[in-house]
């Protein structure tokens, strides 16, 4: 009985040693991973702060004002005025849905319609 116990103890010690060896290397690898990740996080944070600074720089009021002036013919942006405040009651309700048989003839769609047609050469001339 005793020799069996010795052999078992020997194997237990060996397997525990092997486990500890593996755990040690796994821990070191995890620590290396963590520090690599933290380097990456620090780099990302830094570039994030640069992006934020650049975003703030590009959106600085002086530049936006210049852009609004430059693009006035397209955007027609003007300083906000008190007349631009409206009331909810000033907004019209959506028009009531038109019954199918009351709709103008060209809006009635009961049968399949050929919608491909032809693209006019000069769109501005077509009504």
């Amino acid at each position: 009985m005793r020799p069996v116990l010795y052999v078992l103890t020997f194997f237990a010690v060996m397997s525990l040693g092997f486990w500890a060896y593996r755990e040690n290397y796994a821990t070191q690898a995890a620590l290396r991973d963590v520090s690599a990740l933290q380097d990456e996080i620090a780099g990302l944070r830094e570039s994030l702060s640069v992006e934020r600074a650049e975003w703030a720089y590009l959106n600085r009021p002086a530049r936006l004002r210049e852009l609004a002036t430059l693009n006035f013919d397209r955007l027609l942006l003007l300083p906000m005025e008190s007349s631009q405040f409206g009331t909810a009651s000033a907004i019209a309700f959506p028009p009531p849905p038109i019954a199918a048989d009351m709709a103008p003839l060209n809006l009635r769609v009961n049968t399949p319609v050929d919608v491909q047609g032809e693209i006019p050469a000069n769109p501005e001339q077509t009504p």
Partner: protein
Amino acid sequence: MTRTPLRPLARILDARRRGENPDMIERENLAARHEAMRDKSRGRAQLRLVFLALSFFSAFTIIGARMGMLAATEPVEPRTASAGAEILASRADILDRNGRVLATNMRTHALYAQTRDMVDPPRVARELAAIFPELDEATLLRRFTDGRSFMWVRKVLSPEQVQRVHEIGDPGLLFGPREMRLYPNGTLAAHVLGGASFGAEGVGSAEVIGTAGIEKALDMRLRDPATAGTPLQLSLDLTVQATVEEVLATGITMMNAKGGAAILMDVRTGEVVALAAGPTFDPNDRPSNPTSGDPSDSVLFNRGIQGIYELGSTFKIFAAAQAMELGLVNPETLVAANAPMRYGKFLIKEFENHNYGPMLSVTDIIAKSSNVGTAHIAMMIGAERQQAFLKSLGLFDAAPIELIEAKGAKPLRPERWPEIVTITASYGHGISGSPMNLATAYATIANGGIKVTPTLIKRTTPMQGARVMSEKTALQAVAMLRRVVTEGTASMGEVPGYAVAGKTGTADKVKRGGGYYDDKVINTFASVFPANDPKYVLVVTLDEPVETSGPKPRRTAGWTSVPVAAEIIRRTAPLLGLRPQVEAAPMDGLTAVKN
């Protein structure tokens, strides 16, 4: 172990034969056995003691060795714990009230030279001078070769410059990482932000310290590693601030003024929504403080805080409000206003020698800005009560705002307070204060008489201040100020939709040596809007303005500060989310609104 019998039969028989007592043998053996037992237990005890001593010795040795190792090794960051932003950001960001960036940090590089490692100093000096025009080639070469081993070349480099220095390729040129303070909005809110520069510098890092404005006043808060991760949120609104600065700059140009200031304050919370001063500067490239001349000539001078001026007729409402609070008058009470009024050797006159008398109601005294009428009200109040009231409005102390400049800008008032000072102080002469003092006092009136403390930090709860006057008095005072705009001296201040109430003030500038200038004035317009439910106070001050559209130059606040203030209100009130109170023009549909 063999056990020896206590009474060995052979010896007992032998003893009996000799006629001796056999018990003696037993005792003798018993004693011998006890002695053996004692020896054995002593030995065991000694062994235990040795074992214990060894255990303690090794335990203390291990602890001591561990302590020694910990003390001797280099400290390392705990790698398993997650690193937060607070370790990276050396100085907290500054944001506006909506979270837009006003000041942040950027990583750049500083350039230094180890001259011993330098291969070709003349070439390095030549190429550095080509990259940085402000460096002088001859000076650089002299400093590279005069025997020193280390020198700083430049504090902050852009990435392009770093690349070009790399391309020189000399091993004696080295870079140190730097956190640089960046103000992405340029000149915006420059007088509030102030500026920052480097404190103690090392190769590995440098500390960033605030040099002026809120950066210096709250330096400890911004530098504290415990709070560096949380940005500092100001009460300023970036959009409103930009608009106020734009209108003020235009106003300064149009009114040919030397400078100006505009303060927009929320009366409920005391938050300063916009604080503009002109002329302005770029905090990214802050000019150095002037060492000679008049400090107010410098662009660094914050007229809103540091400009201690006689604020003129804007003070009249304080006399009227106090007299109403004390029950001496009501808005309709008639007060003597026959000008000019003689007091001892002094002659108190109205503007351009008008005479609004003989009697004026209190409301009309404010609306017409009658010096004589205010003087009579002040004489009813008396010196002591007047001083106590002005003090309770914060007009005797430096404005408690989070700017380093505010501490040094203490209002000026006479040492003694004879009755003539009571009279002149009631219409804002002989007593000086900053526009911020004035804005605070007006905010107290607009806040229903509850004292307001100005702040630049975002605050969400209303002011919890002491009551300075009753709500009824405050309402009456605002109604009087409204009359100034509708039918008094500030008629240009009318903004459709926003019932503006306010008081103009024109004061001659004080000469440095004493006396007053004839043609240099400070024009102030302190306003409250909307008058029926006051939400904001706006103070506009122009330094030496002159309006030249008429046949002769005009220097009254009604012609200079008031139109500027009206334009500021017209532009900013919609941005502040204030609905116009008259019905807006009927609209065809929705109009795009940009904030």
